[in-house]
């Protein structure tokens, strides 16, 4: 009896090993462990044996059954693994073939520079103000202490538009009129920057455009000094360009600031770059905005935003910014 079981186990092992796939395994499983299987049938005959023999055969029968079950499980697991591997192989992809270069769009490089500057000054406690691009003569010149016929007006090649009296309405030549609008709109303290688009009657070339962008800064508070202007621009220089840049102020002239200065930055290679005009807000400008120059003082600065964009990316022609060539735009 026991030898029959041993014999059966050997045959079962062969059958399990030769089952070729999971379907065959299901058949083998039912043949070897199902209701009509040898091990099931054998259990039914145990009752007819004497006690010792029943014990010996029963024990062996359990062992054989367990062994068959283990063999079946192992074989099934192996076959499942093979089937999964086959399926995975069928799913194989060449991912490089699928890389179609899906892309996001691109902010214009001027916008990127604009937002960087906004973020920097917002971090220093400034708000951001804007004003109209088509301005009146008062905000662009008069309130900024440019008397009529003053030669300083010639510093700006102004484009006028056909609105209102001739000469009354113009394309703003700088962002400085926004200073006036900010001061007219509310009481100091004012800590604000004013980015925007400006216009000059300039023929387009590598360094000039009839349209370009500036950013203006205005601080009006009690006790603001020229030292505050110099310190603020130095802090800006280091924050924007890096700790290895420094700045200097040189005397200059603008009707709306006094003392006035040019703001230069010193590059790490020791060369200087003229970046901005600045100065203490002229008392006449404060007075034009109904602010008492004895109570309030302030400083203002303004510089070209496009040039910062050109510098950052090594672009050598201002016109590229406005040409809108996709091969240019998609680089930033």
């Amino acid at each position, binding site marked *: 009896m026991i030898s029959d079981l041993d014999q059966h186990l050997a045959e079962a092992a062969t059958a399990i090993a030769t089952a070729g796939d999971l379907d065959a395994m299901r058949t083998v499983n039912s043949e070897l462990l199902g209701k009509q299987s040898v091990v099931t049938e054998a259990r039914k005959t145990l009752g007819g044996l004497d006690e010792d023999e029943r014990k010996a055969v029963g024990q062996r029968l359990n062992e054989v059954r367990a062994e068959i079950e283990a063999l079946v499980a192992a074989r099934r697991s192996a076959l499942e693994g093979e089937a999964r591997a086959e399926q995975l192989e069928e799913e194989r992809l060449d991912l490089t073939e699928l890389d179609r270069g899906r892309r996001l769009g691109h902010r214009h490089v001027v916008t990127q520079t604009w937002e960087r500057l906004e973020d920097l000054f917002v971090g220093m406690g400034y708000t951001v103000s804007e004003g109209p691009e088509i301005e009146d003569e008062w905000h662009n010149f008069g309130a900024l202490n440019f008397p009529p016929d003053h030669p300083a007006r010639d510093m700006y090649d102004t484009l006028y538009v056909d609105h209102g009296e001739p000469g009354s309405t113009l394309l703003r030549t700088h962002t400085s009129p926004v200073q006036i609008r900010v001061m007219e709109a509310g009481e100091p303290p004012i800590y604000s920057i004013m980015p925007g688009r400006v216009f000059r009657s300039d023929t387009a070339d590598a360094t000039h455009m009839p349209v370009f962008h500036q950013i203006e800064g205005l601080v009006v508070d009690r006790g603001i000094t020229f030292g505050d202007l110099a*310190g603020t621009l130095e802090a800006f220089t280091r924050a924007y360009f890096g700790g290895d840049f420094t700045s200097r102020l040189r005397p200059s002239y603008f009707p709306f600031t006094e003392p006035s200065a040019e703001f230069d930055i010193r590059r790490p290679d020791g060369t200087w770059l003229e970046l901005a005009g600045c100065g203490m807000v002229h008392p006449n400008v404060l007075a034009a905005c109904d602010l008492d120059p004895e109570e309030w003082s302030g400083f203002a600065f303004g510089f070209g935003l496009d040039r910062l964009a050109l510098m950052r990316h090594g672009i050598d022609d201002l016109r590229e910014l406005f040409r809108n060539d996709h091969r240019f735009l998609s680089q930033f």
Partner: protein
Amino acid sequence: MKVLLSWLQEFAPVSGDPGEIGDQLSELGLAVEGITTVGAGLDGVVVARVLDLRPHPDADRIQLVDVDVGDGEALQICCGAFNMSAGDLVPLATLGTTMPNGMEIARRKMRGEWSNGMLCAADEIGLGADDEGILILDDDHELGRPLAEALELRPDVLYDLEVNPNRPDAMSVAGVARDLAARQGVPFARPEPSPDEAGEDAARRLTVDVLDLDLCGRFAVRVLDGVSIGPSPRWMANRLTALGMRPINRVVDVSNYVMLELGQPNHTYDLDAVQGGALRVRRATEGETVETLDGVVRTLSATDGVIADGNDEAIGIAGIMGGASTEISESTTSVALEMAWWDPISITRSARRLGLRSEASARFERGADPEVADLAMRRFAELLAESGATLTPGMVDVRGNTPARETIRVRTDRVNGLLGTGLERDEIAGLLESIEFSTRPADDDLDVDIPSFRPDSATEIDVVEEVARIYGYHRIARTVPQSTLTGSLTPYQTDRRAVRSAMVGMGLDEVMPVPFLAPGDLERAGLESDGITVSNPLVAEESVMRASLRPGILKTLVYNASHRLHSLGVFEVGHVYRRPDGNQPLPDEREHLAVALAGQDAGAAVGVFSALADALDARRYHLAAHVTPGLHPTRTAQIDVDGVPVGYVGEVDPGVLDAFGVDERVGWLEVDLEVLLGLPHGGRPYRPVSRYPSSDIDLAFEVDEATPAADVEAHLREAAGDLLADLTLFDVFRGAPVADGRRSLAFTLRFQADDRTLTDGEVAEVRKCCIDAVQGSLPAILRG
């Protein structure tokens, strides 16, 4: 303004290496645009005579020149200039010479012909900016003589300064020297010439009548006798050349020299040619003409100032240019020397109107020194005395109106309060005295008298600037004021960033066309032509301000297509300008967003808008078919948000695309950002997520083409009420079995309650409500 170091040193013992002095000038506000060493580095450059000129056998752009350097031998030079003739004297850089720019001259072959040196242009040897051809020398030099010796050149440093409009005093060598001396702490003085005087008093020689005292603040005349025309001394010619003026003859040269040195423009009349011995200063009559020194007949207007003679004939334009009729000539012996002060605004207007900017007008426009005439007259006579000219006694000096100069109280506290310095009263006085502002203590403050050469300084703040300038901006301690505000963007600015982010997230590139359009661009885009126009455009193509972003973007698409860049998706955020309603002071200017999807249809544009609405959380929008000029009449919808129109979505009209030359469909979105972002959006309260199961049902309706899907959806939403968790239009189908002119719209509705599991009965009930709502209100039939 250009200045030579040696010239500055005639006024003050300034010193330092050239670069250091350059930095000091810049720190004084006289920005140095160039520093050139002149009259040095010319060892090896000698005087040579051109013997013969021959074409180069193998080159068109160079010729062969034989020159003699004094040994009688013909030395062959290859030369790229063609302006000399046989017999001319020219500078030759001999073999072994190192030029000022570092180039070494060696014997070399050019296209097969030997060149034994180099002939020099003026700019190559630091003698002015002229680079057109070889410098031709006056015919009185010994051949082979070193050029520096022959031309009496001294090593010197030339500074090219940018002078701001508020600094007329720095339009003179003396003015620059004054600033530099103050900076270096050395004494400054203008030498006082005292030329001999002889002959009849000026007042007996001519009369002066100033008829317009606002135009002419001062008109001073002296007379010189024994004047003759001839070349200036070499040193003077060299200085004028270095400062960019061409030597002409000794009278003209002295006139220029005095102007450059002291800043006083001046004019010489041939006294015998002045009819009636009278000079009359008046405004021109409209249409009056005068022939100026340059031989041009100028027509004047009533705002120009003129100098007329005894017959009241104009013989010069005030402050701008003298006339031809009284010009100094070979026959001149007596000269009337005019030194005037003209009203800056009048001169500015006239110079601008006449398109005639001279060295004189540049100085008068900024405001000349009304008190320097006496000194300048004597300097003029001194310089001309060597040639035998004599100054006669007396000066005819008529005064008109010049700006009043009042004593200015300068408060020490104000100076320090504005600059952030801690200067004592007497330190401030010292700084001001160094530039000839005279001061008197007034308690803790100062009373300051402004010198006549500083018309820009008229108020306390002007003096504060001078204190800062002479003290040195770089010496003022830097501080950073602590903003008492919270730095922030406005909600609009924050939202605008979200708009750009959404567009970039949709794969669109931001474009920035110029906001100028050509006439006709708006009409081509189907828009009204009544745009704001530029009154003084540079070119007609840039004479109209855009009333819409559409033309600029379409041109951008065309530009890219011409470079074979098709099917671009782009967006722009920018201002548009329109005529305002009523009598507004400024045009109606607002910020728009526009999106163009080349090669895509209206559906893609709607997708961009819904993404935008999602980004802004502005979900209560409605699209309604709309016909608007320039956009596709059957593929465009007006966008309403909360019932307010904010823009259009759809496609560009094919006729407009043809007009611009765009050869693919263009999906289009345009939004008035100021309106859209001004409407309520975002900030919705949190709605808890239901923990109960949901049930989905699908409903398909056959609907005629005239009924918008949005209407069906609206009825479904209303009928489903609070139980509706989600609604999606998942299929649109046309064709059999759906009847012609109709289509099937299939929706999935998901129902869910916050507080319970919905029963089948509840779902069936709400389903029925939905069906009844749609079928009852719209020409729609539920499909089986």
